[in-house]
């Protein structure tokens, strides 16, 4: 699959120079073939990750590795650490309900989400350059496992940590929104608007997703009652006999057939409409994580600015007193200034990236939702047509039976 830059910010530019003889650079990934590994409590699902690329940094045109969910989580965490300001594509949730962990549907849904996850990373003009991504896509399993277990200390961000950050951000945003000003927050009205937008958006999309999920259930329920109804009518036909009995039997059979179509559509709806909506919710949550990072960076910058100011005052005092501590103090002051610049640089990078990202996000979401709507409508139309055809085809038979 060829990756295309459809972002309205224009091609972010690939680092690899384009030589006149070679094809355009591409990086294509797919996540396939889920397989259950191990037994009992230790059991897990492994996936085949197939990479096809002509990027020079990669080993060869094609590589296949085996990965499990926690490997994806590792990748997500690393990217989140390294690329602050960029909206890291969302991961599917860790499933905590034992019962469904190995259901075929759940596995398929997860596979699809993981595939989307990796592909979005591979299509992002900055993320695709990530070294961690290369490790993820190419390293053998031992290396991968080592990398995963090394992920301790400052770099390790458990999902629960992220949640805590979200909550902190949420409370901070609410404080700002409610007017409880805290001096360490940005006072950028456009940014405030964006933050409010993101938080409200999550609620709206979550509600839509909830109803989409219910709709899937309803399809299944309707399918079930069509099956039961068809069966009951067939029994009635059997005891009736004659033309009327045949009519009942035919109707019952049609009803059962349609039940099957409804189950199919329920599945289609789940994968192609409900999942994208869920993905939307996750994406918004991921943005909240970035918002938290930005707030952190801003706070750091402010704190350092404070410290620098204080240090400066200190330094001047020492200068006046001609103290021997002055040299050390000067050193520290210079270091602090460097740190301060670094913090400012980091913060400004995040701001710049976020501005680009939000544009990309909006465009991508329009595409994603557009596709989801299209699939939804297509599926509903297909189902409705199948229902209409099935019933219409019964009419001539009914007519001929009724006069016999």
């Amino acid at each position, binding site marked *: *699959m060829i*990756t*295309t830059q*459809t972002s309205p910010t224009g091609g972010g530019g690939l680092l690899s120079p384009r030589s006149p003889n070679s094809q355009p650079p591409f990086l294509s990934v*797919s996540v396939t073939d889920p397989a259950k590994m191990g037994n009992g409590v230790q059991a897990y699902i492994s996936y085949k990750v197939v990479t096809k690329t002509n990027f020079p940094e990669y080993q060869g045109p094609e590589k296949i590795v085996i990965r499990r969910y926690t490997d994806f989580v590792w990748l997500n965490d690393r990217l989140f650490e390294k690329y602050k300001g960029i909206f890291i594509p969302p991961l599917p949730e860790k499933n905590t309900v034992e019962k469904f962990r190995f259901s075929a549907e759940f596995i398929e849904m997860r596979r699809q989400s993981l*595939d989307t996850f990796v*592909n*979005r990373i591979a*299509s992002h003009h900055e993320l695709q350059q990530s070294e961690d991504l290369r490790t993820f896509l190419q390293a053998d399993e031992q290396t991968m496992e080592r990398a995963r277990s090394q992920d301790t200390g400052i770099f390790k961000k458990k999902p629960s940590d992220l949640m805590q950050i979200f909550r902190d951000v949420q409370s901070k945003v609410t404080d700002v929104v409610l007017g409880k000003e805290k001096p360490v927050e940005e006072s950028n009205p456009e940014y405030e*608007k964006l933050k409010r*937008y993101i938080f409200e958006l999550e609620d*709206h*999309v979550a*509600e*839509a997703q909830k*109803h*989409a999920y*219910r*709709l899937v259930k309803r399809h299944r329920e*309707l399918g*079930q*009652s*069509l099956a039961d*109804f068809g069966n*009951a009518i067939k*029994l*009635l036909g*059997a*005891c009736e006999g004659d*033309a*009327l009995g045949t*009519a*009942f039997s035919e109707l019952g059979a049609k009803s059962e057939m349609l039940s099957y179509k409804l189950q199919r559509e329920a599945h289609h709806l789940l994968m192609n409409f409900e999942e994208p909506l869920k993905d939307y919710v996750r994406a918004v949550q991921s943005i909240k994580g970035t918002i938290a990072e930005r707030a952190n960076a801003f706070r750091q910058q402010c704190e350092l600015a404070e410290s620098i100011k204080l240090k400066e005052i200190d330094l001047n005092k020492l200068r006046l007193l001609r103290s021997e501590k002055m040299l050390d103090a000067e050193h520290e002051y210079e270091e602090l200034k460097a740190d301060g610049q670094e913090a400012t640089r980091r913060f400004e990078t995040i701001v710049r990236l976020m501005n680009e990202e939000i*544009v990309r996000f*909006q*465009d*991508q*979401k*329009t*595409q*994603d*939702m*557009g*596709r989801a*709507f*299209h699939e939804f*409508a297509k599926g*509903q*139309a297909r189902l*409705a*047509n199948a*229902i*209409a055809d099935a*019933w*219409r085809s*019964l*009419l001539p038979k*009914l007519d001929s*039976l*009724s006069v016999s």
Partner: protein
Amino acid sequence: MMGLENHEAQLYASREEMESLVLDDDDDNNNNGTNPSSRSNGGANGDGSQHHHPLSPSSPFAEISTTDDDDPLLSSSSSSSSRHQNPSSFNSFLEPPSYADAVFRSFDGDRGKQINGHGATSTSSPSTGSDYLKVSVTDPQKEQDLNNSLVPGGNSFVTYLITTWTNLPEFNGTEFSVRRRFKDVVTLSDRLSDSYRGYFIPLRPDKSVVESQVMQKQEFVEQRRMALEKYLRKLAAHPVMRRSEELRAFLQAQGKLPLMKTTDVASRMLDGAVKLPKQLFGESVVSAAVDPDDVAQPAKGGRDLLRIFKELRQSVINDWGGTKPPVVEEDKEFLEKKKKLEDFERESSNVSQQAESLVKAQQDIGETLGQLGLAFVKLTKFESEEAMFNPQKLRAADMKNVATSAVKASRLYRELNAQTVRHLDKLHEYLGVMLTVNNAYADRSNALLTVQTLLSELSNLSIRIEKLEAAASKIFDGDRSRVRKIEELKETMRVTDDAKNRAVREYERIKENNKKELERLDKERHDDFFGMLKGFVVNQAGYAEKMAGVWEAVANETSGYAKSSLMK
């Protein structure tokens, strides 16, 4: 899409209304159009529609769509108040559906044949050509019962105006009305049961044991009115009942109903109790004989205690005695048909249950679609208000499209359901008809029991006569009292024999009635069920096609997204 910005302000105000309208909508269409007072748009309504030929397409069900053509979200009947709230703002946000329609009318041409439909009366009229007998029940009025009131000024009751239109010769006139109360209907029903044993007589509405306060509530009165109308129409549709003198008297005789009232239980018991000792102690042997005229009637509770005892004893002998009774139900065909009907009853009951589940599932999916649409509407509004980038506006437009369609589909499901309920109701009706069939079979069994009882009596009497004759012949010149006794017994035997003959004739008559009715039922069932199946199928197909149209439009409009893909 471009109209979005202009209507944002109106959107905000109408959002709440939209929610309440859409979400409260669910119960109004399930009335199946049986509420004439709520139809206010176009076409004939309520009583006025009685004049339509039963097969005309303009029965009130067509009205459901015409009130709809302004707005997909406004309910069609009961929320007349909300109909006037900001219709323009709705129109601007959601385009009016293109499905106002004619397409509705093309579904299900059998609509006029419904027994419980409004403008229709007879489902079995094709054979009777242009005869018609239409009845309507209207205008409940409270009246005082000035006689018979133990409580001064108390004891009020409700009367209904029964209007009839007919061209049947036995009626004097083509259009006339009387006022009747529920008690009169009970009387009518009882008299019909007596006169038409063996027929499948429609069951009258239940007496309701409720307190007088409830009796006067509008809802109760309205329910009863509908039930009475349904009942009278069923009678009018029955080829034999409609010609009965009892029905004619009920429909036409002014003033007090000239049918013999069913005596209340207390006085009946009293009568029976008085007769019983005489019969038991044989004061007059002759009076122990069953009155020949009475055999044409089933043993009435109370009045013929002795007869009841005898028939009860006979039935016990039938069931538990060693010997077979002299006359049994021999008609194999009848027994087969009976079994078949029992099977039918059982399976129909099952289908009826599953049909209910199906209707519920259809309702649920419609509701959820509506809620989904609403959620998207909110999201659309949010995105358009907060739009900072162009893609958002585009997305909002797409979403609005989907939202509108989801709401449309939701309404289509609701209408589909209303129709489905109507069709599958036929099944419920036939389950009710099974009860009338069972009554007719009971008539037959009772008549047979009477015959068997009389035959036993005869056989007992002849044994007694034989014994007495044998005894008398031993003594020359005989015992005068014994001779007299023999004479009496012989007289009783003659009377009893006479009664037996009548009972046999009655039994045969009932058997014949059963047979005719079964044939009639089979034919009607055949026609009605084919109509039901076809109607069900046509409806499902029709609504599915409409929904397909709605979604195909959206699929087309969003087809651009299918080509581009950032992911597989």
